[in-house]
């Protein structure tokens, strides 16, 4: 399966901006299930300075600055992705590993733990509380297989929480999401991660896209997709296994990964600083289409 992804972000400023600095995390990385064939980043106006590098997690970063006055900033990332493995992975026996077993294996294998360990600690965005921990325990009773427990947690979040665009922002604390049972994909991913970490298991945040399929007979419009987020759980011998609580599915060939980190802050698609006294409006359009 091959996809062409077009992700365009346009800022329109009320007052001209003389300087802006940006960090983009929009170049999809290679994973076991996908190859990134090509990426083209088009920025207008032409940046005065562009640098590309890989961050600590191996995500691909584009840094750029615009040092002349401009009234609008447009960033268009076009990439071609090939998904290589079909949906279900060979889970096999490892999927039966219990919570205790996974913890023990991480204790014993220091090499493995050295990298995986950082995904066990809570971060500001995945801060747990009593309510969240209690919510997690219902899916993670002692002795249960981690895989089964996570599927259960994913299903419960999907059922208990209402997908409500606009209810939260980047800075809404997780406790509000928990209390109100509302949020968007980032919130659900953070909530699941907080739950799993409260049990003492490693989980990470994945940023990417999902292909939306219109109802039969309706033609798909361009640019109506959105960036998406989900989470991964680490199970020894299996590696990182993805879960999408917003759609209650284990991501397969309709999910395209950009990158990952401990939480949103590590893989925010676009972060910037601009020097301006005015405000700005923002429009984002994402399109994920199959290439035949």
């Amino acid at each position, binding site marked *: 399966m091959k996809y062409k992804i077009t992700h365009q972000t346009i800022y329109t400023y009320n007052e001209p901006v*003389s300087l802006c600095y940006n960090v983009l995390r929009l170049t999809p990385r290679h994973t076991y299930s996908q190859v990134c064939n090509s990426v083209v980043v088009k920025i207008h106006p032409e940046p005065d300075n562009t640098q590309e590098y890989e961050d600590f997690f191996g995500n691909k970063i584009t840094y750029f600055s615009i040092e002349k006055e401009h009234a609008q900033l447009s960033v268009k990332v076009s990439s071609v992705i090939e998904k290589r493995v079909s949906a279900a992975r060979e889970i096999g026996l490892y999927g039966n590993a219990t919570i205790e077993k996974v913890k023990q294996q991480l204790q014993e294998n220091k090499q493995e733990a050295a990298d995986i360990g950082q995904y066990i600690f809570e971060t500001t965005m995945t801060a747990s509380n009593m309510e969240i921990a209690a919510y997690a325990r219902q899916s993670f009773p002692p002795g249960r297989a981690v895989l089964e427990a996570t599927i259960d947690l994913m299903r419960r979040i999907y059922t208990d929480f209402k997908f409500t665009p606009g209810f939260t922002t980047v800075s809404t604390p997780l406790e509000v999401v928990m209390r109100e049972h509302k949020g968007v994909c980032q919130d659900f991913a953070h909530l699941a991660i907080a739950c799993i970490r409260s049990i003492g298991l490693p989980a990470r945040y994945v940023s990417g896209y999902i292909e939306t399929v219109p109802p039969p007979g309706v033609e798909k419009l361009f640019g109506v997709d959105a960036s998406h987020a989900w989470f991964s759980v680490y199970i020894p011998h299996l590696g990182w296994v993805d879960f999408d609580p917003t759609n209650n599915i284990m991501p397969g060939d309709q999910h395209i990964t950009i990158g990952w980190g401990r939480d949103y802050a590590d893989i925010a698609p676009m972060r910037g*600083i601009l020097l301006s006294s005015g405000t700005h409006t923002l429009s984002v359009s994402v399109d994920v289409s199959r290439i035949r």
Partner: protein
Amino acid sequence: MDQFADQAKLPGITGEEEKMPPHWETFFQSYSRLGNDEIATRNEDLTRLMRENGVTYNIYGDPSGLNRPWKLDMIPFLMSKEEWTSIEAGLQQRAQLLNAILEDIYGDRKLIRHGILPFELLYNHPGFLRQCCGIKLPGRHHLVMYSADLARSRDGRVWVVNDRTQAPSGSGYALENRTAMTRVVPELFEGLKVRHLAPYFNTLQQSLTALAPQQRGRLRQPSSPRIVILTPGSSNETYFEHAYLSSYLGFTLVQGNDLVVKDNFVWLKTMGGLERVDVILRRVDDNYCDPLELKADSQLGVPGLLQAVRSGHVTIANPIGSSILENPGLMPFLQSMARFFLSEDLLIPTIASWWCGQPKELKYVLNHLPSLVIKTIYRHPSGSSSIDGASLSAVQLQQLKARILANPALYVGQEKVDISTTPSLIDGHIEPRQVLFRSFLVSSGENYVAMEGGLCRTSSDQGNFVISNQSGGFSKDAWILSPEPHRNFNVLKEVAGYNAPDEDNLTSHAAENLFWVGRYTERVLGNARFLRTVMQFLAEGNKLATDSTQLTEKYLLEALTQNTFTYPGFTGPDSAEQLAQPWEELKDVLLNAKRTGSIKYNFLQFQRAIHEVRDHWSTDTWRVLRTMEEELAQDIPLSHHGHIRMLHTLDNLITFIIAFIGLNRESISREQGWRVLDTGRKIEQSLLLLTMLRTTLVNKTNDQVDYHLQQSVLMSHECLVNYRYKYRQPIDIRLVLDFMLFEPNNPRSLTHLINRLTVHLKHLPKDHAGHALTGYERLILEADTLLKLSDKDTLSTPGTEDTYTQLDEFLTRMYGLLAAIPDVISKTYFKHELTPRSFDVL
């Protein structure tokens, strides 16, 4: 000697031994020769010197004011050559070790991969900045500066209590302590060969210079990299030191918004444009350095800085991310890390510590809580990160236990060191006090150079375990005694050492604040003189209350409100009561700090601007400032006696301001700085003069009132005597205008002010040569022309029966021209900080 016989038994001098070491004996001989009275006097001198030099340690959130005076104990901390040699070697080893750890953490992370350091201590620590991984420094060491707090236990062994690796502070205070000691109590150095501090600072300077990135720009010579000290600003607790080191080392003192990243290089905003920065000595915490990649809401950093570092275009010392080493959790693993990296054992042992992330250690800590000090692996921004188990109640111990169990990897238990004491001068008596010794090291070539001295801090009361500047202890000078004969102490050599500030352009920040210092200087002075004139008139006028004196009073009081901008004051519909009983309002205009336009208010603005550029003032200037502060700090009752007191306060204030102005020329060593300041003064003087003439002379009343008002104008400008001397005629509006507007030899006349301004403005840096005038040059030319085309006879001819219409028009036009100049200057030279705003897109 009798009174000191007991000292021999003081712990801290002798450890467990009975006999006083020879260097203490020598010291106390000099000390007793001074005698008790002299010691008390010298102690006062020391306190006064510290206060006058403005040596302060700011306390965040201290309601009694920002600046807490630095307290220096006259009795130093002595250390023999032998003792120092072993400590020095231990510290150098520790610096090498911490450097290796830092390089590894941001490089290969062998320590984690080989299981020498538990990963939790790294990944769980907010000081580990993943953004900084892979960044290399040009020099030999990643850790450029290192500082350690040392303590001696009662059995004589030396321990490292804290490691400071992020932005170690204190070296400037150590230097200031030494300078004060040599000045106030030189006799105490007799017979003791005390090591100098200067070599450390020379090395620091050389090492930072060597850190400049190799590829050079076209603008500067390779031999003179631009080094700046990045400070969080004047409210930071150690701001004094930032300014002090800036002057001493000759590095420009900057705040985050003085810098800008362009083309991936770091630039300093100066009056002459942008100048490239090569090395940043930072005093801003890691996370605050770059709002783009680190803490997004930081206003203290520079957006894009980390990328400039990553590209190798600028070097930051210590590198961003080095706070990871300020981590008590590393302590238990230091010995094995020393073996791993250096194949050596630690020369200075670490205090026995147990990291609770391991089951056995956790159990030990929980079982021994009351006898341990519990630390978190990083400092909570909220408060103390160190808890003495012995100080907790049973309930508190249970709570602490629960907190540790909830998150054991965050906690470390540490053995309590029974810190030894040293003799300290407390309220005129010598008493033992626990002491911490802070040492400073800087990378130099393959090794580290340690300051041969340091900063000592003592506990505020006997037996107090916690030592910090915040809790009010004393500081001490530390003397390392060297037997080498050529190291004889030389007062002059130690005190001298200030580098001449470089001839670079002023930073925009400094320019802006110096300009405002100039304006507020004159605003305070002008208003104080006018207020004094008004008060004097009231005090005298009350005795002969005729109609005309009452009318004059009314006009003067109204003019006072207009000149100070303290509306409604004596103007407006409800002013009858104020006019009848003016003293309360007058006092308010003098002393109400919260009232915009009051003298106290403007004085505080003046003071704030001065502190923003505190590296520009001489010691004498600080002394004057302190005296002014004290003068204005007192309250004055509303009584006849109070009236005299207020006048007295005004007299003093005026004297101090004039002293301050007199010191400016020699204090501000940089020509450009003085010009900017004086431009501010002359503009403010002109505007005040124009306002006063407009509010007092434009209306024509009767001869008696007009006379009084004209006289007040002359008095407020201290021109009455000169006027009489020049004209030898009674006061008359035509001559008053001549003297105040046109007389070039009167330094307070508008002609003189405009002449000075024209010269100053011509000398400001221009980015283009040639014929075209800048905006402010046009304005001053227009003002000058307007003045030259006017004359005293026209202006003093009444247009209507009760108004000098042409005078009014002249003053209004002139005010408009001159008042526009600051805006143009500001737009051209001062930084226009648009607040950096961060955004995140989902």
